[in-house]
């Protein structure tokens, strides 16, 4: 599965969490990064955060007892996943550019 594509939501969540952020911050950051194109819904984000925590790609920062203000951050494993995904995306773009001859 290491070469499988990440969902857009997971890709942007991981990218956001290079900086520590709480849930709502991630939603706002992703919308901003994508110029308003990707609007993460709260249920989708919540599910993704829990899966990413289980996989160890992100970690919850301790300190905040209040779960509403809980911040998350990407792990080394998460960064490695992002790098691999970036290579895959680059391949897609390069092939697309070459075959469609986009200048």
């Amino acid at each position: 599965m290491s070469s499988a594509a990440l969902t857009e939501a997971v890709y942007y969540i991981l990218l956001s969490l290079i900086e520590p952020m709480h849930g709502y911050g991630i939603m706002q950051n992703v919308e901003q990064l994508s110029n308003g194109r990707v609007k993460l819904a709260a249920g989708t984000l919540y599910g993704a955060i829990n899966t990413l925590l289980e996989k160890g790609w992100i970690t919850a920062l301790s300190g905040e007892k209040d779960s509403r203000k809980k911040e998350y951050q990407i792990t080394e494993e998460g960064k490695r996943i992002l790098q691999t995904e970036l290579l895959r995306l680059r391949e897609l773009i390069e092939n697309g550019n070459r075959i469609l001859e986009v200048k």
Partner: protein
Amino acid sequence: MRQTIRKLFWVWDFDKEEKWLNEMAAKGLSLVAVGFCKYEFEDCKPGEYRICLQLLDKMPGHPESRKYIEFLETTGAEHVGSFTRWVYFRKKASEGEFELFSDNASRIKYLGSVISLIAFVTIMNLFVGLYNLFLAVTYSSSVNYLGFLNLALGIFGALGVLRLFKKRKRMKEEGQLFE
């Protein structure tokens, strides 16, 4: 002004229910409380709120559900009420779009958990219904009419589950093309 409307939606018709609640909000009646086939509304500006509902895996009072509801509240959603495992939220339309799921993968996953919960209740009803039918046939003196109700609910539920399965199949087909 507060007003109560009684209305029945079959449990698998949650999309219709959500659509109706949003039509009410568009007309200036925002949902403020829910009960069994019962919806309470208060006046709002037409289109002021968007409504979403969701079936949770655990009862709303369970710590896991509470964490989820709290999380949604940090994103500007307001928890207006719960009935059994169904929770109802509203959010000001001025704060942007309001949906609980934004990609196919999470929608399909959610639909899967709805299907398994409804299927469980349906199978229980069918089982109790058939057992009663068996008793009625074997010992014709002890006819339990409640058993027929179970059977009817079971058959109805099975049809509902079938519709949800078809819906999920369509979503999965779409998911092969788009995220």
